């Protein structure tokens, strides 16, 4: 009975192989040609088969391998604006986002790959194991009938006798072994289909770690090698563009060619940071604004243009060609393939030659009964075949160890030509400063306008009214003392209101606590006036410079207002710490979802900090909590130079 079960299990394994081949047939165009719409269907069909196999396994072998698929995501819901959302993309109809959701669900589930693993490996492990008893039972009669094959002759024993004994043994052993084999096959299937125990996971993690260290850097070396060679057609393209552009006057070809090159260079800058751990900033100058003049013309260089498109085109050309980084890019594009070959090929060759050139042939020749082959350098080392295996393995190991080092060197090389020069860094800084200065000037002008308006409509007007009241009192005091007294009371009220308004105004310009106590206590006072529990921790060495304190204070005030008004927070924590950098974090437990650039409040904070080269980082996932981190360099807070005669 169990022998038949074994046969059934082997059949199941074989069916799994067929299913796998069916899926692979869809994977080839799916992954290879980008026809991703072919992917989820076969996988989901295959899941049905695997599910069926799981129930059979359970019934036949008594080994349960429960399915652990990630549950299917809900279909995309129509949003109030009529769109359907997938990730960060909006769609008009529900079909495409639904498909994308399914695709990510199926391919992102590790259980899918466990299924594939089972389909691939089970036929040669569990399946064979299950087939063993049936094989023995089948081999018994064959042995009895046909006798022992010639290669299995046992010296000293007559062939017929040996065959008879072995045949009987096989016939007996088959059914005896069958239950055990069936159960073992079940265990193998379970190991392949499920996530496995802790020991396996631990081993898996270690193997993964090894792969990450060695395999990953090896793959990156190969990828970079390929990318460098991709630079050759790009070089040809750029050269063609420049030649045709400058040589034949087809200048419209220059900009696209240079843009393509920038794209490749930027990609490599990114990879240098991500793979080689050598961050390479983008060196290009920011593109200047195209401004329309009073007479309706656009000026680019020394040329005036009537139409915006032509001016735009010329300006783009100037922007691309007048940037030194462009010419450094071209130099890089010419030399990079060569350098990449010199750097990246040796470790690659060491691994390839070490394994396939030295070790493998020798291994085959040693392990398998095949005739010796090879020459002085293939499968042997200078004629010595015995040295080939250790030297080959050593070479491969060395190549693997070299690859991280080579990756780093390659990153350095990329930085050498692609990183911004000191001039470019300064130019970028000037551009940023120009922008933040313009911001500062605008903000200051707006602030002064507000103060002027407040004074004009507030305190000034009240003082005028007070003066008039006093004039009236002067006239009335002799004739109608009672009326005069009433007027005086009104005058006093008027003065009090004026004082209150002035107080509010002063608070908005430069809070008195800030002037008297400095940042930490000013923020504490602010926290006391906030209708939320706010905890303030501060570690500040003495007073900071006044402009810095003011900017930081108003930034915190803005952040607290946001937390109260928009986040719906119930507690807020403010932390102030100063070393070379003043670091302020404002963390609330509110709804989150704050994005810089969206809220005018965050934009305001960025503007305030920008004047001091400060940065705002917002960490606010939807659902909260929100954490704003503001960092302002303390050293550059008051860059007063005596030579500066600029007035703002």
């Amino acid at each position, binding site marked *: 009975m169990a022998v038949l079960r074994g046969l059934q299990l082997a059949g199941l394994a074989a069916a799994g192989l067929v299913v796998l081949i069916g899926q692979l047939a869809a994977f080839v165009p799916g992954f290879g040609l980008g026809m991703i719409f072919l992917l989820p269907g076969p996988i989901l069909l295959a899941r049905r088969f695997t599910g069926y196999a799981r129930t059979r396994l359970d019934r036949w072998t008594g080994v349960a391998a429960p399915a652990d698929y990630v549950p299917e995501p809900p279909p995309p819901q129509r949003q109030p604006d009529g769109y359907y959302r997938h990730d960060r993309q909006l769609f008009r109809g529900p079909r495409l986002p639904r498909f994308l959701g399914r695709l990510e669900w199926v391919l992102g589930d590790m259980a899918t790959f466990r299924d594939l693993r089972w389909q691939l490996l089970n036929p040669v492990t569990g399946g064979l194991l299950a087939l063993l008893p049936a094989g023995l039972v089948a081999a018994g009669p064959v042995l009895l009938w046909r006798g022992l094959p010639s290669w299995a002759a046992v010296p000293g024993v007559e062939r017929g006798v040996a065959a008879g004994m072995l045949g009987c043994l096989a016939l007996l052993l088959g059914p005896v072994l069958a239950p055990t084999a069936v159960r073992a096959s079940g265990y193998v299937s379970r190991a392949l289909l499920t996530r496995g125990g802790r020991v396996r996971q631990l081993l898996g993690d270690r193997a993964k770690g090894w792969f990450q260290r060695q395999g990953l850097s090896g793959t990156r070396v190969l990828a970079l090698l390929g990318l460098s060679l991709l630079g050759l057609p790009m070089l040809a393209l750029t050269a063609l563009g420049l030649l045709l552009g400058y040589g034949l006057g087809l200048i419209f070809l220059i900009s696209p060619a240079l843009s393509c090159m920038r794209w490749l260079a930027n990609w490599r800058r990114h990879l240098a940071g991500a793979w080689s751990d050598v961050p390479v900033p983008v060196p290009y100058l920011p593109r200047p604004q195209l401004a329309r003049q009073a007479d309706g013309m656009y000026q680019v260089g020394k040329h005036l243009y009537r139409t915006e498109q032509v001016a735009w085109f010329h300006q783009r050309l100037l922007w691309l060609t007048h940037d030194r980084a462009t010419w450094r890019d071209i130099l890089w594009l010419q030399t990079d393939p060569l350098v990449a070959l010199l750097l990246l090929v040796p470790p690659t060759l060491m691994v390839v030659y070490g394994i396939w050139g030295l070790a493998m042939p020798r291994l085959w020749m040693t392990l398998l009964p095949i005739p010796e082959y090879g020459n002085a350098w293939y499968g042997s080392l200078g004629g010595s075949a015995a040295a080939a295996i250790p030297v080959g393995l050593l070479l491969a190991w060395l190549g693997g160890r070299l690859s991280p080092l080579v990756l780093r060197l390659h990153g350095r090389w990329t930085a050498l030509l692609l990183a911004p020069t000191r001039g470019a860094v300064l130019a970028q800084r000037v551009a940023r400063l120009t922008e933040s200065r313009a911001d500062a000037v605008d903000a200051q002008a707006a602030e002064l306008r507000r103060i002027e308006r407040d004074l004009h409509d507030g305190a000034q007007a009240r003082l005028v009214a007070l003066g008039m009241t006093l004039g009236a009192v002067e006239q009335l005091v002799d004739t109608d003392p009672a009326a005069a007294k009433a007027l005086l009371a009104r005058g006093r009220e008027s003065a009090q209101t004026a*004082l*209150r308004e002035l107080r509010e105004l002063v*608070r908005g310009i430069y809070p008195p606590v800030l002037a008297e*106590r400095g940042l930490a206590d000013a923020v504490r006072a602010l926290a*006391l*006036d*906030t209708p*939320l*529990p706010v905890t303030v921790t501060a570690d500040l060495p003495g007073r900071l410079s006044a402009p810095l304190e003011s900017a930081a204070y108003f930034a915190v005030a803005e952040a607290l207002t946001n937390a109260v008004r928009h986040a719906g927070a119930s*507690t807020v924590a403010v932390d102030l710490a100063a070393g070379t950098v003043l670091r302020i974090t404002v963390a609330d437990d509110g709804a989150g979802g704050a994005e810089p650039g969206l809220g005018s409040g965050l934009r305001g904070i960025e503007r305030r900090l920008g004047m001091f080269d400060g940065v705002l980082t917002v960490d606010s996932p939807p659902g909260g909590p929100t954490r704003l981190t503001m960092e302002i360099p303390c050293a550059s807070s008051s860059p007063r130079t005596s030579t500066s005669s600029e007035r703002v």
Partner: protein
Amino acid sequence: MRVVLAEDLYLLREGLIQLLQAHGATVVAAVETGPELLAALTTHRPDVAVVDVRLPPTHTDEGLRAALAARREIPGLPVLVLSQHVEQLYARELLADGSGGIGYLLKDRVLNAEQFLDAVRRVAAGGTAMDPDVIARLMSGGRAKAPVAALTAREREVLGLMAEGRSNTAIARALFVSEGAVGKHIASIFTKLDLAQSDDDNRRVLAVLAYLDDARPQ
């Protein structure tokens, strides 16, 4: 009543001297700076000090710090602090030692001579005079505990005046009710807030302020 006055603006200083002396107080010293104030306080040991927060030479919280320093030397020295702005932060610092004889008012309050002098006398007698602005912020700025929200509007008015440091008589006068009515309100407030009854005005104020301050989750 012997008064030490610290105020750096000439006009205001002269005005305050006149106002105080017209109402029977003696200004034993009128100083301009923080160090002078500390010296004057320790030598004259006045019945009350009227102090501006911001004084030369630093024009920061010089006056406040000098007053606090003097109170450390002479515990319970009555100090009335004047400022162009009031902060809960400063109010806490002034009240921190819990020994009474503290006033903290906006300079605007000087415009109402009657009330200002009442505050001076109260502080000199070891009582408390908190600016209505501070009390208002204490009661509304923070998320007051549920019991405060459970008070009636009139009870909250009484609580506010009580926190400023007014006596039952003064509260009755301010709200145009009888003293007995005020007493009933106060008893009700103390029951609702679960505070210990106290006949001593100053201890009562401190209890109420501490309660309101506690209501502020800090």
